[in-house]
């Protein structure tokens, strides 16, 4: 029986009422008295030396408050990078300066050169057009492999070359891995591209800076997934504002997908300029600006090899990846192709030896950083593609080959540094086989062929590491931050609760699902619990939401804080009931004495806490408010198996997705409806990557797909009805809720299923096609068929 409240209930998303009725409060809805507007003059050249900036004509134009250029930021910190990767020789990565406004050089189309603050946006734009910028154009560095050749033009003159780092993982295993390849009975290799993507959240980025001269306090309203991280980075590393004088508010945020994790120049600029101009300063990104200034995602070029023994057991994996960093290091960019990618290379398989090499490269393109899945989709895609290719080369069933190599015993320590706590890969595959009706595939293929179409079936597995992460571990790996989460639970006198969480909801529905957990723990109605997030002034220091970490880490902090509340409330109840604390039980919102009919209601206890007339003041303080910080002891490891069925039109190359089934194991589930929605969204983005989305630059560093006219987003009619199941549940063993996280799974697991299916369709028609690079747009599929 489905529950109608608490953990496991599909409670309707309470936040949707305001989102769907126009009552949300997004950053662009915030307007301050006396506010000025900033327009950024951005480079339309990918690479060049700035020889002159003349703002004199612009400065005297109507409405102009002040014009800023790079020289106004001398002595101000640059944009910090939050993760330092150490290369295979033990040396730190090359880390270039990242200015707020260009200093002497421009390094990608979209880099801000000057900023005009004016009374109105139109006046700011008018004045920006009157600024004269002379740029001596240099050859653009676009192709990663060319960028690493001797004598290549350097993106950063003060670095040795365009190589950010050359990472080997696990370096000590390299010789053993090479040996395993020499001894292999079969080796399958595959070269592929993981296409560059633009996240495109529905709400573009916005920043409003405000400065209170009376108290010397700065406030930044911003579209962020993690306001405390922005406060720390911007306050400590960029502007030198102590955290007690800096407040960062991320109110309703219309989607993030990773690209709103990072600290951006526009945020620092608006905060800085508000003080410099003594006026609030607002910036709202246009969609065009979003394409050339939001951090992009993916962009890996990889060669992967899989070694198998004579019995088709995987014996080793070796990969070589070039990862595009873009022109500068975005906040967490270095971690994505390394610790979020190499550590997942074992996938669901007990391959004993793995070696991952990653060369991170600077190019004259927009910085690349985490995008839904971040590193894990890249790992899953190459692994699941090469396993599929191996099955075809060996003439064995791709599902059987996978099953044969599944990890079945847990905990399992992979050769790439992580330990999976739980999982049941046969379980999700069994479920998938049931959902996918594979037995009926031959008939469906015959039907498609009758209509002149080719039909293909693609299957894959995935594993991801979520709930990032143990702080001491990530510290060793180069993170310049801790990755705990926090919650303060404040109980009001009349029994209602406010939970102030360091997690941040930008579409995920935390206000609903977090409330379900607390309500369940106390046994009260969900509507008595309010979730507050997004404001550093009223939430404890938290690390924010990304990496499917909110319920696993933020939820755990909330559970710990609620446990403290319950423990204290029991003390109060034992006093009121004149019973021993050990005998007090909490059930359905009432405290009772075990084995008696004596009880006291939740509201009586909370009232006593704040009106402590009859109260054990000598033992405990009045009030009922507790804070907990939770630092996980391991990642969580959601896993699953996906199946995609496609039709390919052989005349045009057009691919349509006919069926898609996803069997996931997310551990315990708080709100099944919300989880299903997260999977749907992830699948849409993964299928978008596989079939449609392509962020492309020309050889001059001009972005070819800089608007929706050329960048294809997935739309509802590109997608089938999804068949989603998350009944396979192996609870996480190390967090109190047994949860694993579900936010990224769909985007991680779906691209290989789509490509495997298209390859299957083409091979069914006798085409010698073993791989097509994403997106599998009609022209590419047609070219592959007729190549």
């Amino acid at each position, binding site marked *: 029986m489905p529950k109608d409240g608490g953990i496991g209930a599909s409670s309707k998303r309470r936040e949707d009422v305001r989102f769907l009725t126009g009552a949300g409060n997004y950053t662009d809805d915030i307007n301050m008295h006396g506010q000025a507007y900033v327009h950024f003059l951005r480079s339309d050249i990918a690479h060049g030396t700035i020889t002159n900036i003349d703002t004199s004509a612009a400065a005297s134009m109507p409405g102009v408050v002040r014009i800023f250029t790079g020289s106004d930021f001398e002595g101000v910190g640059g944009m910090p990078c939050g993760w330092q990767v150490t290369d295979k020789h033990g040396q730190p990565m090359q880390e270039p300066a990242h200015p707020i406004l260009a200093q002497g050089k421009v390094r990608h189309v979209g880099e801000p050169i000057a900023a005009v603050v004016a009374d109105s946006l139109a006046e700011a734009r008018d004045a920006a057009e009157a600024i004269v910028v002379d740029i001596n154009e240099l050859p653009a560095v676009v192709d990663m492999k060319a960028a690493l050749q001797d004598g290549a033009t350097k993106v950063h003159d003060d670095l040795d070359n365009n190589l950010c780092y050359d990472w080997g993982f696990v370096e000590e295993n390299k010789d053993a891995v090479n040996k395993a390849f020499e001894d292999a009975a079969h080796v399958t290799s595959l070269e592929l591209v993981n296409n560059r993507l633009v996240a495109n959240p529905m709400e573009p980025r916005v920043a409003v800076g405000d400065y209170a001269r009376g108290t010397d306090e700065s406030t930044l309203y911003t579209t962020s997934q993690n306001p405390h991280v922005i406060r720390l980075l911007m306050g400590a590393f960029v502007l030198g504002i102590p955290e007690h004088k800096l407040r960062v508010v991320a109110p309703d945020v219309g989607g993030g997908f990773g690209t709103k994790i990072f600290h951006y120049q526009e945020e620092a600029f608006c905060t800085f300029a508000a003080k410099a101009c003594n006026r609030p300063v607002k910036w709202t990104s246009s969609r065009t600006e979003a394409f050339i200034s939001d951090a992009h995602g993916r962009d890996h070029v990889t060669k992967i090899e899989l070694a198998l023994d004579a019995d088709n057991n995987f014996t080793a994996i070796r990969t070589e990846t070039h990862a595009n960093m873009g022109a500068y290091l975005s906040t967490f960019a270095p971690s994505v192709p390394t610790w979020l990618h190499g550590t997942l290379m074992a996938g669901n398989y007990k391959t004993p030896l793995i070696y991952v090499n990653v060369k991170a490269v600077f190019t004259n393109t927009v910085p690349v950083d985490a995008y839904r899945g971040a590193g894990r989709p890249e790992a899953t895609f190459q692994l699941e593609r090469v396993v599929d290719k191996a099955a075809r080369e060996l003439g064995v069933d791709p599902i059987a080959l996978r099953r044969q190599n599944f990890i079945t015993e847990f905990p399992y320590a992979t050769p790439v540094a992580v330990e999976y706590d739980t999982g049941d890969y046969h379980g999700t595959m069994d479920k998938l086989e049931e959902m996918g009706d594979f037995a009926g595939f031959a008939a469906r293929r015959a039907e498609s062929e009758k209509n002149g179409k080719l039909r293909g079936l693609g299957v894959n597995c995935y594993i991801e590491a979520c709930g990032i992460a143990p702080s001491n571990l990530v510290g060793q790996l180069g993170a310049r931050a801790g990755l705990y989460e926090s919650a303060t639970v404040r109980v009001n006198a009349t029994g209602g609760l406010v939970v102030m969480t360091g997690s941040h909801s930008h579409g995920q529905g935390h206000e609903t699902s977090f409330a379900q957990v607390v309500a369940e723990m106390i046994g009260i109605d969900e509507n008595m619990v309010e979730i507050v997030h997004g404001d550093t002034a009223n939430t404890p220091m938290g690390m924010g939401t990304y990496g499917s970490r909110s319920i696993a880490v933020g939820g755990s902090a909330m559970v710990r804080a609620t446990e403290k509340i319950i423990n204290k409330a029991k003390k109060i109840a034992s006093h009121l009931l004149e019973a021993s604390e050990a005998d007090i039980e909490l059930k359905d919102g009432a405290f009772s004495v075990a084995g008696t009919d004596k009880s006291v209601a939740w509201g009586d206890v909370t009232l006593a806490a704040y009106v402590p007339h009859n109260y054990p003041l000598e033992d405990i303080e009045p009030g009922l408010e507790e804070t907990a910080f939770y630092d996980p002891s391991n990642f969580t490891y959601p896993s699953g198996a996906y199946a995609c069925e496609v039709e390919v039109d052989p*005349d045009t190359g057009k691919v349509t997705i006919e069926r898609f089934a996803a069997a996931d194991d997310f551990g315990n589930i708080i709100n099944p409806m919300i989880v299903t929605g997260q999977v749907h969204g992830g699948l849409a983005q993964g299928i978008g990557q596989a079939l*449609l989305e392509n962020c*492309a630059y020309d050889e001059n560093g001009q972005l*070819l*797909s800089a608007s929706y006219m050329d960048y294809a987003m997935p739309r509802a009619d590109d997608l089938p009805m999804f068949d989603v199941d998350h009944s396979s549940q192996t609870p996480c063993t190390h967090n109190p809720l047994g949860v694993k996280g579900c936010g990224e799974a769909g985007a991680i697991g779906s691209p290989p299923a789509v490509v495997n299916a298209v390859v299957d369709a083409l091979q069914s028609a006798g085409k010698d096609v073993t791989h097509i690079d994403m997106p599998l*747009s*009609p022209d590419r599929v*047609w070219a592959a068929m007729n190549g």
Partner: protein
Amino acid sequence: MYNFEFEKPGSVADAVAALGADDAQALGGGQTLIPTLKQRLAMPTKLVSLKGIAEMQGVCTGDDGAICIGGATSHATVAAEAGAYPALAATAAHIGDPAVRNRGTIGGSLANNDPSACYPAAALGSGATIVTNTREIAADDYFQGMFTTALDEGEIITEVRFPVPEKANYQKFVQPASRFALVGVYVAKYADGVRVAITGASNDGVFRWTEAEAALSSNFSPDAVDGLSLSGDDMISDLHGTGDYRAHLCGVMTKRAVAAAA
């Protein structure tokens, strides 16, 4: 957007007068022009909306049986009311999305002559007549290359007349991002022959595929196109397809249009 004056005249004559001002520009549905203005890529001093001119609105049938569409008629109205020419109504019904169809106009589309737009193929494929405030222009003379037409400065498309064919069909293979035509083929069979007009493909904008017309005029069946091909050399080559791919699609879509023609 830069500042501009705005006028909404009630007659063609008033519109022509308003357009006499320096750098004045006609505004149809604004589905092309407004985004251009927002990007600050154009700087008209005055916009003259044609949407308030009653004589430029609606669909009717002329004495010769041709469908006559007012120059400021929206795509949605054509989709709903041009039932006497089903292929034309269906073409209009697949332009853009509902918002675009409710705002965008046939005059705006033909005046703009985007190389990937649908109406140019319908007009050229039907041998339509473009009626302006000063003259009548045959479709064959009207389209003069990408974004280029026979219109003079300030000339207004007041009406478009489509002779109704025996059979016709438009096959649009969409560009995945914009959903304009990557290649769109309009085939119309008239008593005196078949016309085939192709949009989306050529560097010279919409064009007639005369070889296919000849073959289909003698045998109106998909097989008639077998063996015919266009060169990809002068075709658009971009992120979404090479010239050769587009040339190939011209053949595929022509056959499909013939097969579907009703």
